């Protein structure tokens, strides 16, 4: 693990030197997290947006500050963005079109006499 001293911020020359040294090491950016919020019990968590944080705990804290400042939520999930696998819109045809010609999956496909109400 790297070790460094905190920059002494009141000494000017010192400060510049310290920052230069740190800059070399700091090439690691905080990863991106996706934020899901349940607005109230009884509802599902919904995607609210994303943010950068060093770890899951910080992502939770930041999400609380960014996305629930006005009582927007009662529960938060955070997932690191790289763990999400998404379908490719280019494959939308083969993925979603087959559902279009399967009308028999909908109740209106079936003919019933008018006398039958509420079915």
């Amino acid at each position, binding site marked *: *693990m*790297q070790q*460094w001293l*905190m*920059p002494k*911020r009141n000494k000017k020359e010192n400060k510049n030197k*310290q*920052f230069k040294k*740190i*800059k070399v*090491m*700091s090439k*690691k*950016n*905080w990863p*991106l997290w996706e934020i899901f919020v349940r607005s109230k019990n009884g509802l599902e968590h919904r995607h609210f*947006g*994303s*943010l*950068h944080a*060093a*770890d899951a705990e*910080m992502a939770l804290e930041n999400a609380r*500050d*960014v996305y629930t*400042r*006005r009582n927007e939520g009662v529960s938060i999930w955070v997932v690191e963005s790289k763990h999400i696998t*998404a379908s*490719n*819109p*280019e494959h939308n045809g083969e993925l979603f079109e087959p559902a279009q010609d399967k009308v028999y999956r909908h109740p209106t496909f079936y003919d019933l006499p008018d006398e039958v109400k509420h079915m």
Partner: protein
Amino acid sequence: MSEEQIKNLEKQFDERILRDEKIEPKDWMPEKYRQTHIRQMSQHAHSEVVGMLPEGNWITRAPSLRRKVALLAKIQDEAGHGLYLYSACETLGVSRNELYDQLHSGKAKYSSIFNYPTITWADMGAIGWLVDGAAIINQVPLCNTSYGPYARAMIRVCKEESFHQRQGYEIMMKLANGTPEQKEMAQDALNRWWWPSLMMLGPTDDKSVHTAQSMKWKLKRKTNDDLRQQFIDQTVPQAELIGLTIPDSDLKWNEESNSYDFGEIDWDEFWQVVKGHGPMNKERMKARVDAWEEGEWVRDAAMAYAEKKQERKQKQAV
């Protein structure tokens, strides 16, 4: 892809937008659409972030606790708005750090209004009332823009923004109804912020280079001149209501057009400020870059700590 294939895709793309379909991050899009969106959304994000600086100037000197908590909440909102917009921008494959670099190196622009100084408390009122008022007029149509992540960010921004304008107007109202000195302070702030607020809505239509393309992509739903007229028509009665005078001797109600005629805007001043010669351009950028650089060790420490915790967890699991 062949040129013909691209043309074909572009045609389909334009038709989707015409049908009011939203475009989502992984959908095919013309490179120019992507670039234009990165430019506009990041400018917007930068404006939110730099916009915190003129107001930050007054947090410690707010005249009451009530004003102070409101100002703090407003500034915190702006940080949040910056974040929503940066995130939306990142869905187009540009990293947060690239965006910051563009801001800090001066390559990217932000709203020129933030290059004016905030010299009295009344400026907090004028900014909320006029600057946020103009911003809302600009932003409401964007809730309907074609790029999904941008539209969603704008819906959230607009929801939060209306408190900003109301708190600003309330500050102006209180001052305008106060002692003669307080009223003078409010009038002085209106005098200084009025014209820059009109400029904020962008160059006149005949000088605006991106308007036609942006209208097509619904990045813009109304032209700059239309937005400006809407802002003036809505703001003039608000000034009258609290007994303040708009600093424009040519301002006159026009029965025929059912709107206000107004005086000439000093576009030279606008371009000067855009090009970096405004009263506060240098200070704003310096404050921003200093904050970023001086925070670097904190960001690094947080990352190192997160890694250490992770390693410890893994060791315990073995």
